[in-house]
């Protein structure tokens, strides 16, 4: 099988990339999706609040996905469902597998990586105790309740206050379960304020900050968990233990980009985001291989995923049309200054820049009244005052092509947080 652009994953990123590539005039665009339907994780995110930026209204996850799925159908985007990609070679031969076709290969001229992310599993958390039934990642529980229509348990404790954990606290409560507490290791929650208020406060579910699980009792089924306060070094403080009887522990402890396929094919990955390092065109270090959405870096709003993936689809289209090949032009690096954990992209090639370039990034801490500053060489060209920057909210700056073109060779771009109030 052959195609112009192969898109790995049919969630929000893959759908937007496919639509953009088709609209840019590429005839053969193929989505490869392991699930039996398109839409990815949005199908189980049945709460509302999606699409405020894109559609100016609040949609639920499946409604947001349906708009993109319909658009992709209208444009005749081809999709292979129930098909899992097991390998991609550096020369863009994809090995895939399905019950219908067995193992087969697809040769592509360009590839868009859009595999999304995974939840951090229990094994990565070092929680003590046996391995009884009743311990789920929040997203697994979400799938059981919202898609399969099954309740994973009735007396629940949640570890981690990421948004999925908060959403599931409300969801389990509305389905008749008792959620006893949400424990968060950090002194602040990584979840949106809106979710803390509407998922916990509305139902009087306590949020216990600087708290973790120090024991899980039960051999066949969870019987109780022990919570304890932690000190500034995240070490449990003896004497602060609290035992909560429950049959279910949900884990909402962070998301990890799912890059097994990328690393197998040798894509250069960032140790900070866990996703590929990409340039201004969202192209990885392998020519013609692009990345977007949560496989690139974890987003908090699907609207930003759709936007980023649209760019990736357009760049992939330019690539297969031969309009955008990387030559020997040296890239200008984007450095992370004070407070900035990472940027996407990590570098820029002047000749391929559009008039405006969005650089997305996250900060490493909570900053009050900071300025987001952009330096080109030694010169500060942007200084934007913010009320607050927090690790849970993705930030962005917009760079102008004309500014970048005026840079001297050897200079780099730097983004930094300055003048925050202590």
């Amino acid at each position, binding site marked *: 099988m052959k195609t112009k652009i192969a898109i790995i994953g049919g969630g929000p990123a893959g759908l937007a990339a496919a639509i953009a590539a088709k609209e840019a005039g590429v005839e053969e665009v193929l989505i490869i999706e392991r699930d039996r339907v398109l839409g990815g994780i949005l199908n189980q995110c049945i709460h509302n609040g999606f699409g405020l930026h894109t559609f100016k209204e609040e949609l639920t996850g*499946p409604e947001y996905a349906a708009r993109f799925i319909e658009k992709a159908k209208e444009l005749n985007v081809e999709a292979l469902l129930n098909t899992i990609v097991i390998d991609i070679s550096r020369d863009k031969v994809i090995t895939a597998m399905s019950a219908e076709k067995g193992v087969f290969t697809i040769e592509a001229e360009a590839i868009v990586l859009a595999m999304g992310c995974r939840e951090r599993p229990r094994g990565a958390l070092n929680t003590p105790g046996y391995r009884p039934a009743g311990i789920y990642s929040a997203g697994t529980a979400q799938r059981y309740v919202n898609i399969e229509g099954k309740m994973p348990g009735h007396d629940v404790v949640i570890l981690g206050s990421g948004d999925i954990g908060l959403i599931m606290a409300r969801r389990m409560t509305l389905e008749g379960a008792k959620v006893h507490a949400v424990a968060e290791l950090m002194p602040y929650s990584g979840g949106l304020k809106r979710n803390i208020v509407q998922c916990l406060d509305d139902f009087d579910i306590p949020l216990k900050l600087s708290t973790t699980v120090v024991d899980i009792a039960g051999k066949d089924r969870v019987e109780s968990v022990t919570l304890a306060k932690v000190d500034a070094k995240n070490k449990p403080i003896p004497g602060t233990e609290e035992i909560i009887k429950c049959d279910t522990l949900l884990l909402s402890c962070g998301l990890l980009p799912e890059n097994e396929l990328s690393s197998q094919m040798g894509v250069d990955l960032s140790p900070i985001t866990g996703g590929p390092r990409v340039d201004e065109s969202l192209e990885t270090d392998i020519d013609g291989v692009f990345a977007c959405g949560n496989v690139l870096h974890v987003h908090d709003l699907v609207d930003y995923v759709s936007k980023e993936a649209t760019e990736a689809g357009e760049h992939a289209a330019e690539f297969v049309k031969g309009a955008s090949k990387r030559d020997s032009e040296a890239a200008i690096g984007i450095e992370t200054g004070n407070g900035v954990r990472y940027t996407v992209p990590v570098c820029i090639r002047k000749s391929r820049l559009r008039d405006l370039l969005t650089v997305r990034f996250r900060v490493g801490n909570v900053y009050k009244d900071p300025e987001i500053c952009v330096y080109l060489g030694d010169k500060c060209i942007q200084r934007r005052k913010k009320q607050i920057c927090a690790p849970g909210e993705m930030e962005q700056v917009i760079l102008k092509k004309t500014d970048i073109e005026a840079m001297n060779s050897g200079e780099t771009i730097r983004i930094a947080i300055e003048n925050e109030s202590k």
Partner: protein
Amino acid sequence: METRHLTCIGCPMGCQLTVTFEPGNRDSVKVTGNTCKRGELYAIDEVTNPTRTVTGTVRLKNRHMKVAPVKTKTPVPKDKIFDVAEAMMKIELEAPVRIGDIACADVCGTGSDLVVTGNID
């Protein structure tokens, strides 16, 4: 006068708001602790007429162990959340369902319809 403490949901600041008000009198609401106009508007709505869009699932008769997602088409009074959630548990639809199908008109007398939010064939 009544006093309530709220966390503003307008942005990640999460300002701690103190609201004093005479129940039932919108003009009496006084908000402190907010750092912008959005905080004040949020607090006024929250103590006079708090509403939420309720989302959940309903059973599909002809789909073994499968459910369809639903939502209230417009936000409903906050104190009706559990009534609506309970009503959802009793509703059964027949697949296929399309986005926008009415699962229950005027659910729990809220004036809002419960509508399907996912296409299930």
